[in-house]
Protein backbone atom coordinates (compact mmCIF):
# COMPACT_ATOMS: atom_id res chain seq x y z
CA UNK A 1 0.00 0.00 0.00
CA UNK A 2 1.26 3.43 -1.01
CA UNK A 3 -0.16 5.60 1.74
CA UNK A 4 2.50 8.28 1.43
CA UNK A 5 2.70 8.53 -2.34
CA UNK A 6 3.25 11.82 -4.20
CA UNK A 7 0.15 11.29 -6.33
CA UNK A 8 -3.21 9.77 -5.50
CA UNK A 9 -4.36 6.43 -6.88
CA UNK A 10 -6.38 7.16 -10.05
CA UNK A 11 -9.54 5.37 -11.18
CA UNK A 12 -8.78 4.22 -14.75
CA UNK A 13 -12.50 4.43 -15.66
CA UNK A 14 -12.77 8.15 -14.77
CA UNK A 15 -11.77 9.63 -18.12
CA UNK A 16 -14.11 7.35 -20.01
CA UNK A 17 -17.05 8.28 -17.81
CA UNK A 18 -16.42 12.00 -18.10
CA UNK A 19 -16.12 11.72 -21.89
CA UNK A 20 -19.36 9.71 -22.15
CA UNK A 21 -21.23 12.23 -20.00
CA UNK A 22 -19.95 15.21 -22.02
CA UNK A 23 -20.83 13.54 -25.33
CA UNK A 24 -24.33 12.67 -24.06
CA UNK A 25 -25.03 16.24 -22.96
CA UNK A 26 -23.53 17.63 -26.17
CA UNK A 27 -25.93 15.45 -28.19
CA UNK A 28 -28.92 16.29 -25.98
CA UNK A 29 -28.66 20.06 -26.45
CA UNK A 30 -29.11 20.11 -30.24
CA UNK A 31 -32.20 17.90 -29.75
CA UNK A 32 -33.59 20.34 -27.16
CA UNK A 33 -32.79 23.24 -29.50
CA UNK A 34 -34.57 21.47 -32.34
CA UNK A 35 -37.74 21.07 -30.27
CA UNK A 36 -37.49 24.69 -29.03
CA UNK A 37 -37.86 23.34 -25.52
CA UNK A 38 -37.72 26.26 -23.10
CA UNK A 39 -39.14 25.81 -19.60
CA UNK A 40 -39.03 29.60 -19.12
CA UNK A 41 -42.02 30.10 -21.45
CA UNK A 42 -44.11 28.18 -18.93
CA UNK A 43 -43.48 30.83 -16.29
CA UNK A 44 -44.56 33.80 -18.34
CA UNK A 45 -47.55 35.66 -16.79
CA UNK A 46 -49.80 34.95 -19.78
CA UNK A 47 -48.99 31.26 -19.78
CA UNK A 48 -49.48 30.85 -16.06
CA UNK A 49 -52.81 32.65 -16.12
CA UNK A 50 -54.12 30.60 -19.01
CA UNK A 51 -52.94 27.38 -17.41
CA UNK A 52 -54.35 28.41 -14.04
CA UNK A 53 -57.75 29.22 -15.48
CA UNK A 54 -57.83 26.00 -17.52
CA UNK A 55 -56.85 23.79 -14.57
CA UNK A 56 -59.03 25.81 -12.18
CA UNK A 57 -62.05 25.15 -14.35
CA UNK A 58 -61.45 21.38 -13.81
CA UNK A 59 -62.61 21.44 -10.19
CA UNK A 60 -64.84 20.02 -8.97
CA UNK A 61 -65.30 17.06 -11.36
CA UNK A 62 -68.66 16.82 -13.07
CA UNK A 63 -70.90 14.31 -11.25
CA UNK A 64 -74.31 14.83 -12.81
CA UNK A 65 -75.91 11.35 -13.10
CA UNK A 66 -76.69 11.84 -16.77
CA UNK A 67 -73.11 12.75 -17.54
CA UNK A 68 -71.73 9.90 -15.43
CA UNK A 69 -73.91 7.44 -17.34
CA UNK A 70 -72.53 8.89 -20.57
CA UNK A 71 -68.93 8.55 -19.35
CA UNK A 72 -69.42 4.96 -18.16
CA UNK A 73 -70.99 4.05 -21.49
CA UNK A 74 -68.10 5.66 -23.38
CA UNK A 75 -65.60 3.93 -21.08
CA UNK A 76 -67.19 0.56 -21.83
CA UNK A 77 -66.94 1.38 -25.49
CA UNK A 78 -63.26 2.24 -25.06
CA UNK A 79 -62.61 -1.07 -23.30
CA UNK A 80 -64.51 -2.87 -26.06
CA UNK A 81 -62.49 -1.10 -28.78
CA UNK A 82 -59.23 -1.99 -27.02
CA UNK A 83 -60.30 -5.60 -26.44
CA UNK A 84 -61.53 -6.33 -29.96
CA UNK A 85 -58.57 -4.44 -31.45
CA UNK A 86 -56.17 -6.45 -29.32
CA UNK A 87 -57.88 -9.70 -30.31
CA UNK A 88 -57.37 -8.82 -33.98
CA UNK A 89 -53.75 -7.94 -33.16
CA UNK A 90 -53.22 -11.38 -31.59
CA UNK A 91 -54.81 -13.02 -34.63
CA UNK A 92 -52.23 -11.22 -36.81
CA UNK A 93 -49.25 -11.61 -34.47
CA UNK A 94 -49.46 -15.26 -33.45
CA UNK A 95 -49.43 -16.85 -36.94
CA UNK A 96 -46.75 -14.37 -38.00
CA UNK A 97 -44.57 -15.23 -34.98
CA UNK A 98 -45.08 -18.97 -35.53
CA UNK A 99 -44.04 -18.67 -39.16
CA UNK A 100 -41.06 -16.41 -38.48
CA UNK A 101 -39.52 -17.81 -35.30
CA UNK A 102 -36.25 -19.66 -35.67
CA UNK A 103 -36.87 -22.07 -32.82
CA UNK A 104 -39.64 -23.93 -34.66
CA UNK A 105 -37.54 -24.38 -37.79
CA UNK A 106 -37.18 -28.03 -38.77
CA UNK A 107 -34.43 -27.41 -41.28
CA UNK A 108 -32.16 -25.96 -38.58
CA UNK A 109 -32.12 -29.18 -36.50
CA UNK A 110 -29.10 -30.91 -37.96
CA UNK A 111 -27.29 -27.98 -39.51
CA UNK A 112 -27.99 -25.13 -37.07
CA UNK A 113 -29.03 -23.05 -40.07
CA UNK A 114 -32.44 -22.48 -41.65
CA UNK A 115 -32.93 -23.52 -45.24
CA UNK A 116 -33.00 -20.71 -47.84
CA UNK A 117 -36.76 -20.53 -48.50
CA UNK A 118 -37.84 -20.48 -44.83
CA UNK A 119 -35.19 -17.82 -44.17
CA UNK A 120 -36.65 -15.63 -46.94
CA UNK A 121 -40.20 -16.11 -45.63
CA UNK A 122 -39.05 -15.26 -42.12
CA UNK A 123 -37.42 -12.03 -43.30
CA UNK A 124 -40.49 -11.09 -45.35
CA UNK A 125 -42.74 -11.54 -42.31
CA UNK A 126 -40.44 -9.38 -40.18
CA UNK A 127 -40.63 -6.61 -42.78
CA UNK A 128 -44.40 -6.89 -42.88
CA UNK A 129 -44.52 -6.54 -39.09
CA UNK A 130 -42.25 -3.48 -39.25
CA UNK A 131 -44.57 -1.91 -41.84
CA UNK A 132 -47.67 -2.57 -39.73
CA UNK A 133 -46.26 -0.97 -36.58
CA UNK A 134 -44.19 1.83 -38.11
CA UNK A 135 -47.35 3.73 -39.11
CA UNK A 136 -48.81 5.16 -35.87
CA UNK A 137 -52.27 3.96 -34.89
CA UNK A 138 -53.62 7.51 -35.08
CA UNK A 139 -52.66 7.64 -38.76
CA UNK A 140 -54.34 4.28 -39.39
CA UNK A 141 -57.38 5.64 -37.51
CA UNK A 142 -57.55 8.72 -39.75
CA UNK A 143 -57.31 6.46 -42.82
CA UNK A 144 -60.07 4.17 -41.57
CA UNK A 145 -62.30 7.06 -40.50
CA UNK A 146 -62.21 8.09 -44.18
CA UNK A 147 -62.91 4.53 -45.27
CA UNK A 148 -65.59 3.36 -42.82
CA UNK A 149 -66.78 6.67 -41.38
CA UNK A 150 -66.71 8.10 -37.87
CA UNK A 151 -67.05 5.56 -35.08
CA UNK A 152 -65.63 2.57 -33.26
CA UNK A 153 -64.83 0.36 -36.27
CA UNK A 154 -62.02 2.68 -37.36
CA UNK A 155 -60.48 2.52 -33.86
CA UNK A 156 -60.72 -1.26 -33.72
CA UNK A 157 -59.01 -1.70 -37.07
CA UNK A 158 -56.28 0.84 -36.31
CA UNK A 159 -55.40 -0.91 -33.04
CA UNK A 160 -55.60 -4.35 -34.64
CA UNK A 161 -53.11 -3.48 -37.37
CA UNK A 162 -50.56 -1.44 -35.40
CA UNK A 163 -50.63 -3.72 -32.36
CA UNK A 164 -50.48 -6.79 -34.59
CA UNK A 165 -47.08 -5.54 -35.77
CA UNK A 166 -45.90 -4.79 -32.23
CA UNK A 167 -47.14 -8.05 -30.70
CA UNK A 168 -45.68 -10.08 -33.57
CA UNK A 169 -42.23 -8.59 -33.11
CA UNK A 170 -42.24 -9.08 -29.34
CA UNK A 171 -43.73 -12.61 -29.56
CA UNK A 172 -40.84 -13.61 -31.81
CA UNK A 173 -38.34 -12.13 -29.38
CA UNK A 174 -39.94 -13.78 -26.32
CA UNK A 175 -40.04 -17.18 -28.04
CA UNK A 176 -36.44 -16.94 -29.18
CA UNK A 177 -35.00 -15.68 -25.90
CA UNK A 178 -36.57 -18.50 -23.87
CA UNK A 179 -34.87 -21.84 -23.24
CA UNK A 180 -36.02 -23.71 -26.33
CA UNK A 181 -34.46 -27.10 -25.68
CA UNK A 182 -37.88 -28.64 -25.00
CA UNK A 183 -39.07 -27.64 -28.49
CA UNK A 184 -35.81 -28.83 -30.06
CA UNK A 185 -36.18 -32.28 -28.50
CA UNK A 186 -39.76 -32.65 -29.77
CA UNK A 187 -38.69 -31.61 -33.28
CA UNK A 188 -35.76 -34.04 -33.13
CA UNK A 189 -38.22 -36.82 -32.38
CA UNK A 190 -40.40 -35.98 -35.35
CA UNK A 191 -43.06 -33.65 -33.95
CA UNK A 192 -44.48 -30.97 -36.26
CA UNK A 193 -43.90 -27.22 -35.90
CA UNK A 194 -47.33 -26.51 -34.44
CA UNK A 195 -47.06 -29.48 -32.10
CA UNK A 196 -43.66 -28.32 -30.87
CA UNK A 197 -45.18 -24.88 -30.26
CA UNK A 198 -48.15 -26.17 -28.26
CA UNK A 199 -46.23 -28.77 -26.26
CA UNK A 200 -42.94 -26.96 -25.63
CA UNK A 201 -42.48 -23.34 -26.74
CA UNK A 202 -45.91 -22.14 -25.57
CA UNK A 203 -45.82 -23.59 -22.02
CA UNK A 204 -42.25 -22.31 -21.60
CA UNK A 205 -43.10 -18.73 -22.64
CA UNK A 206 -46.78 -18.44 -21.71
CA UNK A 207 -46.41 -16.05 -18.71
CA UNK A 208 -44.24 -13.61 -20.66
CA UNK A 209 -46.51 -13.75 -23.71
CA UNK A 210 -49.61 -13.19 -21.57
CA UNK A 211 -48.09 -10.41 -19.53
CA UNK A 212 -46.95 -8.50 -22.61
CA UNK A 213 -50.29 -9.00 -24.34
CA UNK A 214 -52.14 -7.57 -21.34
CA UNK A 215 -49.75 -4.63 -21.19
CA UNK A 216 -50.58 -4.00 -24.85
CA UNK A 217 -54.28 -4.14 -23.97
CA UNK A 218 -53.64 -1.42 -21.38
CA UNK A 219 -51.82 0.62 -24.04
CA UNK A 220 -54.73 0.01 -26.43
CA UNK A 221 -57.12 1.57 -23.91
CA UNK A 222 -54.97 4.72 -23.86
CA UNK A 223 -54.55 4.64 -27.64
CA UNK A 224 -58.29 4.36 -28.24
CA UNK A 225 -58.70 7.51 -26.12
CA UNK A 226 -56.27 9.40 -28.34
CA UNK A 227 -57.87 8.03 -31.49
CA UNK A 228 -61.23 9.25 -30.25
CA UNK A 229 -59.93 12.77 -30.97
CA UNK A 230 -59.89 12.01 -34.69
CA UNK A 231 -63.38 10.52 -34.50
CA UNK A 232 -62.61 6.86 -33.97
CA UNK A 233 -65.08 6.38 -31.13
CA UNK A 234 -64.98 5.80 -27.38
CA UNK A 235 -64.12 8.01 -24.43
CA UNK A 236 -61.75 10.12 -26.52
CA UNK A 237 -64.53 11.33 -28.77
CA UNK A 238 -66.51 12.48 -25.69
CA UNK A 239 -63.42 14.12 -24.24
CA UNK A 240 -62.79 16.04 -27.42
CA UNK A 241 -66.36 17.41 -27.32
CA UNK A 242 -65.96 18.47 -23.68
CA UNK A 243 -62.60 20.13 -24.40
CA UNK A 244 -64.05 22.03 -27.34
CA UNK A 245 -66.80 23.29 -25.07
CA UNK A 246 -64.16 24.18 -22.44
CA UNK A 247 -66.06 22.01 -19.93
CA UNK A 248 -63.10 21.37 -17.61
CA UNK A 249 -65.16 19.56 -14.97
CA UNK A 250 -66.25 16.98 -17.55
CA UNK A 251 -62.65 16.56 -18.71
CA UNK A 252 -61.52 15.86 -15.14
CA UNK A 253 -64.22 13.23 -14.64
CA UNK A 254 -63.08 11.50 -17.79
CA UNK A 255 -59.40 11.69 -16.79
CA UNK A 256 -60.32 10.03 -13.49
CA UNK A 257 -62.08 7.36 -15.52
CA UNK A 258 -58.86 6.75 -17.51
CA UNK A 259 -56.92 6.28 -14.29
CA UNK A 260 -59.54 3.78 -13.10
CA UNK A 261 -59.37 1.85 -16.39
CA UNK A 262 -55.57 1.59 -16.35
CA UNK A 263 -55.69 0.58 -12.69
CA UNK A 264 -58.18 -2.19 -13.51
CA UNK A 265 -55.98 -3.36 -16.41
CA UNK A 266 -53.06 -3.54 -13.99
CA UNK A 267 -55.11 -5.64 -11.54
CA UNK A 268 -56.20 -8.03 -14.31
CA UNK A 269 -52.58 -8.41 -15.42
CA UNK A 270 -51.38 -9.17 -11.89
CA UNK A 271 -54.20 -11.66 -11.39
CA UNK A 272 -53.44 -13.54 -14.62
CA UNK A 273 -49.73 -13.69 -13.83
CA UNK A 274 -50.57 -15.16 -10.45
CA UNK A 275 -52.79 -17.81 -12.02
CA UNK A 276 -50.12 -18.74 -14.59
CA UNK A 277 -47.07 -18.98 -12.33
Amino acid at each position, binding site marked *: MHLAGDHKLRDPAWHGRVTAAVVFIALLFPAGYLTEFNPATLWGDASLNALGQFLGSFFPPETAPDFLRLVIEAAWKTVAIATVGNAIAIAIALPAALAATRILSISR*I*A*TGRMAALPAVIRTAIRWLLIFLRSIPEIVWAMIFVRAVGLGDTAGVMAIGITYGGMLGKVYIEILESADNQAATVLL*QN*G*AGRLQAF*WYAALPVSLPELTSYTIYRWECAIRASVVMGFVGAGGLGQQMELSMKMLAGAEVLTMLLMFVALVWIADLVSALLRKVLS
Partner: protein
Amino acid sequence: MRASPLQEPPQTALSGVRVSYVTGAPALDGVTLSFAPGEQIAVIGPSGAGKSTLLATLACALRPAAGSVRVLGIDPWSLPTAQLHALRRRLFLAPQLPPLPPRQRVVHAVLAGRLPQWSAWRALRSLVYPQDAEIARAALERFHLEDKLFLRCDKLSGGERQRVALARLLASDAELLLLDEPVSSLDPALALNALEVLQAEAAARRATLVVSLHAVDLALAQFPRMIGVRAGQVVFDLPRAEVSDQRLADLYGAELNASVQTLPEEPTAVLKLSRCT
Protein backbone atom coordinates in the same frame (compact mmCIF):
# COMPACT_ATOMS: atom_id res chain seq x y z
CA MET B 1 -45.42 -43.90 -41.59
CA ARG B 2 -43.84 -47.35 -41.63
CA ALA B 3 -41.11 -48.13 -44.17
CA SER B 4 -42.06 -50.42 -47.00
CA PRO B 5 -41.01 -54.03 -46.34
CA LEU B 6 -37.36 -54.47 -47.25
CA GLN B 7 -35.38 -57.52 -48.20
CA GLU B 8 -33.18 -57.17 -45.13
CA PRO B 9 -34.39 -56.10 -41.72
CA PRO B 10 -33.95 -52.36 -41.17
CA GLN B 11 -30.48 -51.67 -39.92
CA THR B 12 -28.85 -48.79 -38.17
CA ALA B 13 -25.17 -48.24 -38.84
CA LEU B 14 -22.37 -45.69 -38.93
CA SER B 15 -19.42 -46.04 -41.27
CA GLY B 16 -16.26 -43.95 -41.02
CA VAL B 17 -18.25 -41.15 -39.39
CA ARG B 18 -16.51 -37.91 -38.46
CA VAL B 19 -18.29 -35.07 -36.62
CA SER B 20 -16.35 -31.84 -36.05
CA TYR B 21 -16.23 -29.19 -33.34
CA VAL B 22 -16.32 -25.50 -34.24
CA THR B 23 -12.53 -25.49 -34.01
CA GLY B 24 -12.36 -28.27 -36.60
CA ALA B 25 -11.14 -30.79 -34.04
CA PRO B 26 -13.10 -34.04 -34.37
CA ALA B 27 -15.84 -34.88 -31.84
CA LEU B 28 -16.21 -38.27 -33.47
CA ASP B 29 -13.54 -39.65 -35.77
CA GLY B 30 -13.66 -42.75 -37.91
CA VAL B 31 -16.56 -44.32 -36.04
CA THR B 32 -17.93 -47.49 -37.60
CA LEU B 33 -20.69 -49.33 -35.76
CA SER B 34 -23.69 -51.46 -36.64
CA PHE B 35 -26.87 -52.15 -34.67
CA ALA B 36 -29.31 -54.98 -35.34
CA PRO B 37 -33.06 -54.60 -34.77
CA GLY B 38 -33.96 -55.47 -31.21
CA GLU B 39 -30.36 -55.21 -30.03
CA GLN B 40 -29.55 -53.54 -26.67
CA ILE B 41 -26.23 -51.75 -26.34
CA ALA B 42 -24.54 -49.70 -23.62
CA VAL B 43 -22.12 -46.92 -24.57
CA ILE B 44 -19.54 -46.09 -21.90
CA GLY B 45 -16.51 -43.81 -21.71
CA PRO B 46 -15.09 -40.81 -19.87
CA SER B 47 -16.82 -37.40 -19.89
CA GLY B 48 -16.40 -35.54 -23.17
CA ALA B 49 -15.56 -38.77 -25.05
CA GLY B 50 -18.31 -38.20 -27.62
CA LYS B 51 -21.14 -40.40 -26.26
CA SER B 52 -23.81 -37.71 -26.64
CA THR B 53 -22.50 -36.78 -30.09
CA LEU B 54 -22.72 -40.44 -31.09
CA LEU B 55 -26.37 -40.65 -30.01
CA ALA B 56 -27.25 -37.34 -31.72
CA THR B 57 -25.63 -38.57 -34.94
CA LEU B 58 -27.69 -41.79 -34.81
CA ALA B 59 -30.82 -39.64 -34.26
CA CYS B 60 -30.23 -37.56 -37.43
CA ALA B 61 -29.85 -34.57 -35.11
CA LEU B 62 -26.26 -34.01 -36.26
CA ARG B 63 -25.00 -34.30 -39.79
CA PRO B 64 -21.54 -35.85 -39.96
CA ALA B 65 -18.76 -34.05 -41.84
CA ALA B 66 -17.64 -37.34 -43.35
CA GLY B 67 -18.72 -40.96 -43.48
CA SER B 68 -22.12 -42.53 -44.03
CA VAL B 69 -25.12 -43.08 -41.77
CA ARG B 70 -27.98 -45.55 -42.05
CA VAL B 71 -30.92 -45.16 -39.72
CA LEU B 72 -33.51 -47.96 -39.74
CA GLY B 73 -32.18 -49.01 -43.15
CA ILE B 74 -32.40 -45.51 -44.66
CA ASP B 75 -29.68 -42.99 -45.54
CA PRO B 76 -31.17 -39.92 -43.79
CA TRP B 77 -28.99 -37.34 -45.53
CA SER B 78 -30.11 -38.38 -49.01
CA LEU B 79 -33.73 -37.56 -48.10
CA PRO B 80 -35.63 -34.31 -48.69
CA THR B 81 -36.50 -32.48 -45.44
CA ALA B 82 -40.07 -33.79 -45.23
CA GLN B 83 -39.04 -37.43 -45.54
CA LEU B 84 -36.12 -36.94 -43.17
CA HIS B 85 -38.62 -35.60 -40.65
CA ALA B 86 -40.87 -38.62 -41.26
CA LEU B 87 -37.88 -40.82 -40.41
CA ARG B 88 -37.38 -38.88 -37.17
CA ARG B 89 -40.89 -39.93 -36.10
CA ARG B 90 -39.63 -43.51 -35.87
CA LEU B 91 -36.84 -42.75 -33.40
CA PHE B 92 -36.67 -41.40 -29.88
CA LEU B 93 -33.69 -39.36 -28.65
CA ALA B 94 -33.74 -38.49 -24.95
CA PRO B 95 -31.18 -35.91 -23.81
CA GLN B 96 -29.57 -36.20 -20.41
CA LEU B 97 -31.44 -33.28 -18.86
CA PRO B 98 -35.16 -33.88 -19.34
CA PRO B 99 -36.45 -30.79 -21.19
CA LEU B 100 -39.89 -30.52 -19.61
CA PRO B 101 -41.53 -27.07 -19.57
CA PRO B 102 -41.94 -26.27 -15.85
CA ARG B 103 -45.60 -25.24 -16.15
CA GLN B 104 -46.63 -28.17 -18.31
CA ARG B 105 -48.66 -30.88 -16.61
CA VAL B 106 -47.19 -34.37 -16.46
CA VAL B 107 -50.02 -35.85 -18.53
CA HIS B 108 -49.13 -33.60 -21.49
CA ALA B 109 -45.39 -34.08 -21.03
CA VAL B 110 -45.89 -37.85 -21.35
CA LEU B 111 -48.44 -37.67 -24.17
CA ALA B 112 -45.93 -35.56 -26.14
CA GLY B 113 -44.50 -38.99 -27.01
CA ARG B 114 -47.65 -39.54 -29.13
CA LEU B 115 -47.12 -36.35 -31.20
CA PRO B 116 -45.48 -38.14 -34.16
CA GLN B 117 -48.63 -40.27 -34.44
CA TRP B 118 -51.05 -37.39 -33.85
CA SER B 119 -52.30 -34.79 -36.28
CA ALA B 120 -51.80 -31.15 -35.29
CA TRP B 121 -55.53 -30.94 -34.64
CA ARG B 122 -55.51 -33.94 -32.30
CA ALA B 123 -52.50 -32.51 -30.45
CA LEU B 124 -54.39 -29.27 -29.87
CA ARG B 125 -57.52 -31.10 -28.76
CA SER B 126 -55.47 -33.03 -26.24
CA LEU B 127 -54.37 -29.78 -24.60
CA VAL B 128 -58.04 -28.82 -24.20
CA TYR B 129 -58.94 -32.24 -22.81
CA PRO B 130 -56.26 -34.97 -22.55
CA GLN B 131 -56.66 -37.58 -25.28
CA ASP B 132 -55.43 -41.07 -24.41
CA ALA B 133 -54.79 -40.10 -20.78
CA GLU B 134 -54.90 -43.84 -20.06
CA ILE B 135 -51.72 -44.31 -22.14
CA ALA B 136 -49.96 -41.67 -20.04
CA ARG B 137 -51.21 -43.19 -16.79
CA ALA B 138 -50.08 -46.70 -17.81
CA ALA B 139 -46.64 -45.38 -18.84
CA LEU B 140 -46.21 -43.55 -15.53
CA GLU B 141 -47.39 -46.57 -13.56
CA ARG B 142 -44.43 -48.58 -14.81
CA PHE B 143 -42.18 -46.00 -13.10
CA HIS B 144 -44.46 -45.83 -10.00
CA LEU B 145 -45.47 -42.25 -10.83
CA GLU B 146 -49.15 -42.73 -11.73
CA ASP B 147 -50.21 -40.42 -8.87
CA LYS B 148 -48.31 -37.53 -10.54
CA LEU B 149 -50.42 -37.64 -13.73
CA PHE B 150 -52.13 -34.26 -13.27
CA LEU B 151 -49.34 -32.42 -11.42
CA ARG B 152 -47.23 -29.72 -13.01
CA CYS B 153 -43.69 -30.70 -13.97
CA ASP B 154 -42.15 -28.09 -11.65
CA LYS B 155 -43.72 -29.90 -8.69
CA LEU B 156 -41.52 -32.95 -9.38
CA SER B 157 -38.10 -33.85 -7.99
CA GLY B 158 -35.15 -34.27 -10.36
CA GLY B 159 -35.47 -38.05 -10.34
CA GLU B 160 -39.21 -37.87 -10.98
CA ARG B 161 -38.67 -35.50 -13.90
CA GLN B 162 -36.18 -37.92 -15.41
CA ARG B 163 -38.67 -40.79 -15.13
CA VAL B 164 -41.48 -38.68 -16.60
CA ALA B 165 -39.23 -38.06 -19.62
CA LEU B 166 -38.72 -41.84 -19.88
CA ALA B 167 -42.48 -42.42 -19.59
CA ARG B 168 -42.77 -40.27 -22.73
CA LEU B 169 -40.68 -42.92 -24.48
CA LEU B 170 -43.14 -45.63 -23.34
CA ALA B 171 -45.99 -43.57 -24.81
CA SER B 172 -44.21 -43.33 -28.18
CA ASP B 173 -44.08 -45.92 -30.97
CA ALA B 174 -40.36 -45.41 -31.75
CA GLU B 175 -38.29 -48.28 -33.10
CA LEU B 176 -34.87 -46.77 -32.41
CA LEU B 177 -34.37 -45.67 -28.81
CA LEU B 178 -31.36 -43.45 -28.08
CA LEU B 179 -30.99 -42.54 -24.42
CA ASP B 180 -28.29 -40.26 -23.05
CA GLU B 181 -27.62 -41.03 -19.37
CA PRO B 182 -31.28 -41.92 -18.76
CA VAL B 183 -30.87 -42.81 -15.07
CA SER B 184 -28.25 -40.26 -13.95
CA SER B 185 -30.58 -38.63 -11.36
CA LEU B 186 -31.85 -41.89 -9.84
CA ASP B 187 -30.56 -43.84 -6.83
CA PRO B 188 -29.05 -47.27 -7.66
CA ALA B 189 -32.21 -49.29 -6.94
CA LEU B 190 -34.48 -46.95 -8.96
CA ALA B 191 -31.88 -46.76 -11.74
CA LEU B 192 -31.85 -50.55 -12.10
CA ASN B 193 -35.65 -50.67 -12.01
CA ALA B 194 -35.99 -47.93 -14.66
CA LEU B 195 -33.45 -49.58 -16.95
CA GLU B 196 -35.28 -52.90 -16.67
CA VAL B 197 -38.56 -51.22 -17.64
CA LEU B 198 -36.90 -49.59 -20.67
CA GLN B 199 -35.23 -52.83 -21.73
CA ALA B 200 -38.47 -54.83 -21.40
CA GLU B 201 -40.27 -52.20 -23.52
CA ALA B 202 -37.54 -52.22 -26.16
CA ALA B 203 -37.63 -56.03 -26.28
CA ALA B 204 -41.44 -56.06 -26.53
CA ARG B 205 -41.44 -53.76 -29.58
CA ARG B 206 -38.23 -55.24 -31.07
CA ALA B 207 -36.69 -51.77 -30.95
CA THR B 208 -32.96 -51.08 -31.00
CA LEU B 209 -31.91 -49.60 -27.64
CA VAL B 210 -28.68 -47.61 -27.35
CA VAL B 211 -27.99 -46.21 -23.89
CA SER B 212 -25.03 -44.15 -22.69
CA LEU B 213 -24.18 -44.76 -19.05
CA HIS B 214 -21.75 -43.43 -16.47
CA ALA B 215 -22.35 -46.37 -14.12
CA VAL B 216 -20.13 -49.07 -15.61
CA ASP B 217 -21.34 -51.78 -13.21
CA LEU B 218 -24.94 -51.11 -14.23
CA ALA B 219 -23.98 -51.27 -17.91
CA LEU B 220 -22.14 -54.56 -17.37
CA ALA B 221 -25.05 -56.04 -15.41
CA GLN B 222 -27.76 -55.08 -17.89
CA PHE B 223 -26.37 -54.99 -21.43
CA PRO B 224 -25.03 -57.89 -23.51
CA ARG B 225 -22.99 -55.59 -25.77
CA MET B 226 -20.72 -52.74 -24.69
CA ILE B 227 -19.17 -49.97 -26.76
CA GLY B 228 -16.27 -48.06 -25.20
CA VAL B 229 -15.75 -44.53 -26.53
CA ARG B 230 -12.79 -42.31 -25.80
CA ALA B 231 -11.63 -39.08 -27.44
CA GLY B 232 -14.17 -39.44 -30.25
CA GLN B 233 -13.13 -42.95 -31.20
CA VAL B 234 -14.51 -46.43 -30.56
CA VAL B 235 -11.96 -48.14 -28.30
CA PHE B 236 -13.83 -51.43 -28.06
CA ASP B 237 -17.12 -52.96 -29.23
CA LEU B 238 -17.47 -56.29 -27.42
CA PRO B 239 -19.83 -58.75 -25.76
CA ARG B 240 -19.74 -57.94 -22.06
CA ALA B 241 -17.94 -61.20 -21.21
CA GLU B 242 -14.91 -59.88 -23.07
CA VAL B 243 -14.87 -56.48 -21.39
CA SER B 244 -12.01 -57.04 -18.96
CA ASP B 245 -11.00 -54.87 -16.03
CA GLN B 246 -7.89 -53.95 -18.00
CA ARG B 247 -9.95 -52.64 -20.91
CA LEU B 248 -12.06 -50.57 -18.53
CA ALA B 249 -8.94 -49.22 -16.83
CA ASP B 250 -7.55 -48.25 -20.25
CA LEU B 251 -10.85 -46.64 -21.23
CA TYR B 252 -11.08 -44.42 -18.17
CA GLY B 253 -7.41 -44.31 -17.15
CA ALA B 254 -5.08 -41.40 -17.93
CA GLU B 255 -8.27 -39.37 -18.29
CA LEU B 256 -6.34 -36.16 -17.73
CA ASN B 257 -4.16 -36.67 -20.79
CA ALA B 258 -7.18 -37.47 -22.90
CA SER B 259 -9.14 -34.45 -21.79
CA VAL B 260 -6.19 -32.16 -22.52
CA GLN B 261 -6.16 -33.40 -26.10
CA THR B 262 -9.91 -33.13 -26.56
CA LEU B 263 -11.22 -30.07 -24.83
CA PRO B 264 -14.84 -30.72 -23.85
CA GLU B 265 -16.37 -28.46 -26.45
CA GLU B 266 -19.78 -28.93 -27.98
CA PRO B 267 -19.91 -29.96 -31.64
CA THR B 268 -20.98 -27.19 -34.02
CA ALA B 269 -24.61 -28.11 -34.54
CA VAL B 270 -25.25 -29.18 -30.96
CA LEU B 271 -23.93 -25.86 -29.70
CA LYS B 272 -26.52 -23.97 -31.71
CA LEU B 273 -29.35 -26.33 -30.83
CA SER B 274 -29.14 -26.58 -27.08
CA ARG B 275 -28.08 -23.49 -25.25
CA CYS B 276 -28.98 -24.77 -21.81
CA THR B 277 -27.44 -28.20 -21.39
